């Protein structure tokens, strides 16, 4: 059993999924919670339940729904053109990972954005900043620890994704077999040495995620303290 393929594929799938999830989650969290009008709030509520649904669904059910959506007869898969729709490709694994990790990113980003002191935003507004500039220069930096935490959770969830991926991407060694799928195959076929190795890799990855998050939190806190102490911004 080749173990390098699933590891590289998992990093590739989870990496790309995290980038997409981060951008999408941040955008949705900012957009859905900025609406003030009544119909807008109702629409936002509906969209929010849709985003959070994969948290409630068992992964196989998410996988089954994605199968219908991405298959050659589904609304998304039929646009793709290829004979099997998007199924059995590593992109299908990325889509599955995005769908299951988006709720975590969305919820973290939402909490982080709403916890930003409105006075800072109001102050920037009185000084004539555009909303876009305020968002990128005030809101996002102040909310960053929460956003980064959401990204880490999303990455972790994407690395561990199994049920939905098995359904839409298949379990094809060298093409769509990620670490959890390889682990499943190894356990299923009684290949304990491969299973133990993959388990070790997964544990190491989860350690790495925690280390990166804690490091970034410390750096953020340090740079904020530095600025507050009069170090000035660069």
């Amino acid at each position, binding site marked *: 059993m080749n173990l390098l393929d699933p590891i590289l594929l998992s990093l590739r799938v989870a*990496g*790309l999924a995290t*980038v997409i999830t981060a951008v999408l989650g941040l955008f949705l969290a900012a957009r859905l919670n900025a609406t003030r009008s009544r119909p807008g709030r109702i629409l936002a509520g509906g969209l929010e339940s849709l985003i959070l649904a994969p948290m409630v669904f068992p992964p196989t059910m998410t996988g089954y729904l994605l199968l219908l959506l991405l298959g050659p007869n589904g609304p998304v898969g039929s646009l793709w053109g290829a004979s099997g729709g998007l199924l059995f490709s590593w992109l299908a694994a990325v889509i599955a990972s995005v769908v299951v990790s988006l709720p975590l990113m969305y919820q973290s980003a939402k909490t982080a954005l709403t916890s930003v002191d409105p006075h800072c935003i109001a102050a920037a507004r009185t000084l004539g900043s555009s909303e876009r500039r305020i968002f990128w220069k005030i809101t996002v930096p102040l909310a960053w620890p929460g956003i*980064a935490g959401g990204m880490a959770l999303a990455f972790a969830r994407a690395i561990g994704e199994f049920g939905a991926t*098995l359904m839409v991407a298949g379990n094809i060694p060298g093409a769509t077999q990620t670490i959890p799928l390889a682990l499943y*195959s190894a356990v*299923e076929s009684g290949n304990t040495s491969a299973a133990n190795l993959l388990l070790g890799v997964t544990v190491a990855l989860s350690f790495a995620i925690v280390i990166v998050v804690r490091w970034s939190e410390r750096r953020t806190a*340090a740079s904020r303290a530095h600025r507050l102490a009069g170090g000035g911004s660069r």
Partner: protein
Amino acid sequence: MRIIPFFMLNSLRPLWLATAIAGLVIWSGSGCSGKDPLIISAASSLGPVLEELKPAAEAACGSRIALNLAGSGALRTQIESGAPADVFIPAASPDMDLLEKAGLILRDTRRDCAANALVLVSATRTLADGTHDLATTLAVWSRIAVGDPVSAPVGRYTTNVLARLGLEQSLSNKVVTGNSVRQIVSYIETGSVDGGFVFATDAQRLIQAGKARHLRRFTPAESGGEVRYPAAVLARSHNPEAARKFVLFLSGTTAQAAFERAGFTKP
């Protein structure tokens, strides 16, 4: 306009580093493609044998082969939704029957490529041997692992055996139900049960690893039908010629020898 404030670039260096590494990994891996391989959707229990046969099979059918291994039911759902598979090999006939009824397989290509049998094994620590009759042996056990008759094919055969031997009543409070044969195997491996009903291939692996002892092999008459692994070319195969050759290869001497080594029997 500077979209990202400069201080962020600095204070978040580890995250940018992580992103850059992720980007490199994505970049490095995305360039792989070749001629479309034959996709074999097979029950995961067949994985080791098919993996071993892959080079010979590729030579025989003149196409690269990709194995897609999962539970038979999940594979069937994928095929029903139009997933691009070429050959289907489930661990139980009903999944194949459903696809045949839906016209999703090429009917004339269907043939059984291997067979299995139901076996009762005891965990190594259990004091039991095959000399007593089954009822006496099982009477002293306190826990026995059995497959769920709904979700695990092994459970259906086990239920038949227990009914035929009239043991259902006496075992009902000792039964530990597993969702798949794999779960039963791990109960036996860890010694969590006194023994259990598994397939001959699982029994062989358990016994070779010194984790179980063979007690009794059941005939197809006792287990209510033979355990068969049917194979067929799918109607939507992109390369039916090569797929046909693959299914024929499975019945050939090379493949049958490999199946036999893994504990399967001839269909």
